[in-house]
Each structure stands twice: as structure tokens, then as C-alpha cells.
């Protein structure tokens, strides 16, 4: 009897058949990164439009959250690393085809920029604030002088940051749930919307809230539209794609996704916001809270579900 020995290359623990390497750190980071991108985008946008006076919370107070979110998010990423001491090697190269390289460099720039942004408003936020050293005061004066160009750079970087949180997943061509180009704009929209929700929560100015709520309403509708298109794309795709989508259409993530992300995290808040804009009394913290909660669950579900989808059988 001739015996043949088969050697399969498919026994790779934690990678094949299921990816099992990304835990809570990654979705938390994607969430906080998107949130910071949203806050910084709108702060920069209103400075460029010259509306600093009308949008005080957006431009000043809310931006304090951005560096904190970025630092906690990066801390989570660092925690996730297996070889922590080699993280600096990301900065020995620039690779245009790698989303991670884009992200690493964008974060390298936008994190200190967000800190400088908040610092440059310290004197306006806290009367009597003094930087003590002359060089810091000079640097502050320089930032204030070039605030608009600074805002332009930060706005562009914040868009890259927001898109990158989605592209990071969609560049995984081995995981059908992530391998969709809709993920970039979807994560950007969701990040902008969670950022706005944070600002709306903090703002006490009626007019500012109204302007921001209107934008948020549009963003959430766009997000719903992108989610529908994500699933249309999957269902019109190959068998692995329809199988990936079936996790959300009857599979184990159906309830979590549709109840907590789509209904409570998107649809219900826009109904509440629409009523608020028409003059009804809505608890002010509720729509932002639901949007922030929905965004967090969305990232956890996407990262968790994506890891168990696969191309090979």
C-alpha cells in the first residue's frame, strides 16, 4: 500500500483559520482615534472659517479631549504590541502602500499638534495662565500668529487619521468582512460623528449646539447609507463575502449590531436630534451618549467579527 503523507500549512495558531490576535485594545484605539480625529477636524474647520467666537466649545474646550483620547488610544496600541521595545522601528521607514505606516506617521504629527493646539488656547480658557518660560511664550505667539495654516494642516491630518482607522482593517485582504473599501469612509464618518457628539455633550451654547446637531444629523444619515452599502457590497460579492455578511444577517452578531449599533446608536439618536431641533425638550446628554456608545460597540463588533471571517475553507 502506498501511503502519502499530507503536510498542511494551515495549522497556524491564532491566525488560521481564525484570527485571534486582536483584543479590546485595537477597537478601543480605533474608537479613540476616530473620536480625536472628529474633534480636531471640527476645531480646525471652524478656525479656518473664522468662527472661533461663535464656536467656543468646538474650538477650545472640547479639543482638550483629543490629546487625552490619542494618548490613551496609543497606550492601548502599545499594550497590544508583542515586542514593545521595537515600536520605534515603524519610524525608520515610510511606506506609502502600508496603512500602518500612514497611521504611524500621522499620529506622530497629529498627537503633538493637538497638544500644541490646546496649549495655545490655555490663556483664553484659564485667565491668568502663564507659561513661565520665555521660549514657551514665544512659541505660543508663533502658533497664534499662524493659527489658520496650522488648522489647515491639522484638518487634513485629522481626515487621514479618521480614514486610516478604517483602511487599517480594509487592507487585510485575508479577512472578507474587512476587505471592503467602504470601511475607510464609514470609519471616518463614524469618527466625525462621535467627535461631534462629544462636542455637543460639552457645549452649553444653544446656537453652537444647534449648528453642530444639524451636521451630526447629516453625518449619521451618511453613516447609515454607508452601512447599507457595505452590506449590499457583501451580498453582491463572492460566497465568502455573503458568508461574512451572514454573521450580521441572522448570525451571532445580528442582535448586537442591529440593536446596539444601528437602532440605538444611529437611528434613535437622529430621531431625538430631529425632535430637539424642532424645539422639543430632549435630555441633552442622551443623543451624544447613544452615538458614542454605538460607535464603541460598532468598532468592537467589526474587529471581533472580522477576525472570524476567512477566505479559505
Amino acid at each position, binding site marked *: 500500500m502506498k501511503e502519502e503523507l499530507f503536510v498542511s500549512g494551515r495549522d497556524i495558531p491564532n491566525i488560521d483559520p481564525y484570527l485571534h490576535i486582536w483584543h479590546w485594545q485595537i477597537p478601543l484605539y480605533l474608537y479613540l482615534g476616530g473620536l480625536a480625529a472628529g474633534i480636531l477636524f471640527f476645531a480646525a474647520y471652524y478656525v479656518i472659517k473664522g468662527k472661533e467666537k461663535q464656536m467656543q466649545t468646538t474650538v477650545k474646550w472640547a479639543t482638550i479631549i483629543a490629546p487625552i483620547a490619542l494618548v490613551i488610544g496609543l497606550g492601548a496600541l502599545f499594550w497590544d504590541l508583542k515586542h514593545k521595545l521595537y515600536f520605534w522601528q515603524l519610524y525608520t521607514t515610510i511606506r506609502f502602500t502600508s496603512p500602518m505606516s500612514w497611521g504611524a506617521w500621522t499620529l506622530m504629527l497629529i498627537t503633538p499638534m493637538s497638544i500644541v493646539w490646546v496649549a495655545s488656547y490655555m490663556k483664553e480658557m484659564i485667565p491668568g495662565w502663564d507659561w513661565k518660560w520665555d521660549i514657551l511664550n514665544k512659541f505660543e505667539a508663533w502658533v497664534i500668529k499662524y493659527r489658520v495654516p496650522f488648522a489647515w494642516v491639522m484638518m487634513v491630518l485629522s481626515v487621514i487619521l479618521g480614514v486610516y482607522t478604517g483602511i487599517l482593517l480594509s487592507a487585510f485582504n485575508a479577512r472578507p468582512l474587512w476587505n471592503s473599501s467602504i470601511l475607510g469612509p464609514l470609519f471616518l464618518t463614524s469618527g466625525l460623528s462621535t467627535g461631534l457628539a462629544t462636542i455637543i455633550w460639552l457645549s452649553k451654547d444653544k446656537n453652537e449646539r444647534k449648528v453642530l446637531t444639524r451636521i451630526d444629523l447629516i453625518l449619521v444619515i451618511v453613516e447609515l447609507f454607508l452601512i447599507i452599502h457595505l452590506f449590499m457590497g457583501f451580498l453582491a460579492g463572492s460566497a465568502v463575502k455573503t458568508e461574512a455578511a451572514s454573521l450580521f444577517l441572522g448570525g451571532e452578531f445580528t*442582535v448586537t449590531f442591529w*440593536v446596539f449599533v444601528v437602532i*440605538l446608536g444611529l437611528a*434613535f439618536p437622529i*430621531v*431625538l436630534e430631529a*425632535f430637539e431641533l424642532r*424645539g*422639543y*425638550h*430632549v*435630555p441633552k446628554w*442622551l443623543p451624544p451618549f447613544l452615538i458614542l456608545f454605538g460607535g464603541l460597540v460598532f468598532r468592537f463588533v467589526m474587529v471581533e467579527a472580522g477576525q472570524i471571517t476567512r477566505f479559505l475553507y
Partner: protein
Amino acid sequence: MKKEKLHNTPHYINPYLGGVLLGLLVIITVYITGRGLGASGAIKSAVVTTADAIYPEGARENPYYSRFISDGHSPMYNWLVFESLGIFFGGLLSGIIFGRVKKFRVEHSPKITSKTRLIVALLGGILFGIGSQFGRGCSSGAALSGSATFSLGGVIVMLLLFGTGYAIAWMFKKLWI
């Protein structure tokens, strides 16, 4: 201005119309989900889950709790839990539209304090919870959905629930009006 005022004065639905709508809701629920409504079941799931999280050995040994605990299937993954979430958010939406949502507050009779009201409400809730487990359902599960299927038990629960309430309301009316 008139519209603004309308938003901010509380409106309540006519109780008879509300009753009819509730009945129609049972029909729709049975049509969509294939089963009736309930409310106490969600609380039970929450209690069982909490007990299982804090003291798993105890919860699993308890003859009553253990009936609802199984590995790989959380008691919270239950239609009644999601239905109750829907009741909460739906009620909130109704409150917003009909001007009943204002600043956070405790509604109570001017004759008693907020503290009394909260303590008595908690006691009432506990009694209702225990009673609903002996009666195999509360006013939604047993009385409403039960009597909709012409179940004798449902009718008995309905009569006892509201009959007892009517009979002893006089003694406790100071806690309410």
C-alpha cells in the same frame, strides 16, 4: 409660540384608547415574534445574570436560578430583555413628543417626600416581582398576553391583580394622591 407651549405641557393618552392600543399591540407582537409580551421576565433575566456573575456557585445551586443558567447562552440574550429596552426607549420618545420629559425629578404626592416615594416604590416593586413569579407572570405576561389566549390562569391573574389593587387602594392612597 403656541407650538412651543404644546411641546412643553404634559399630555397623556386617554386610558381607554391606550387599553385598545395595548390590545392591538399584543396581536402585532404575536404576529411578528410568535409569542406574547412580558416585562417581569426581563427583570428575572437581569437578576439571574447578576447573581451568576457575583456568586456563580450559589446561583447554579439555587433550584430556581439554575433553570435559567446554561453555558454559552446568557440569560440576557432573551427577547423579553430586548423588548424591555424597547419599552424604555419607546416610552422616552413618547415622553419627549408629548412634553412629559423635563429635568430629572421624582414624581410624588405633595403630602409625602421624595424619599418616602422612592422607598415605597421599591417595596412595591419587590412585592410585584415576587408576586409575578408565584403567579407565573406579571400584568403584561400573564394578564395581557395570557388572557388574550383565553387562558384561565391569565384571567385569574387579571382579576386578582386589579381586584386586590382596587380593594386595598384606600389604605395606601396617601402614598399616591
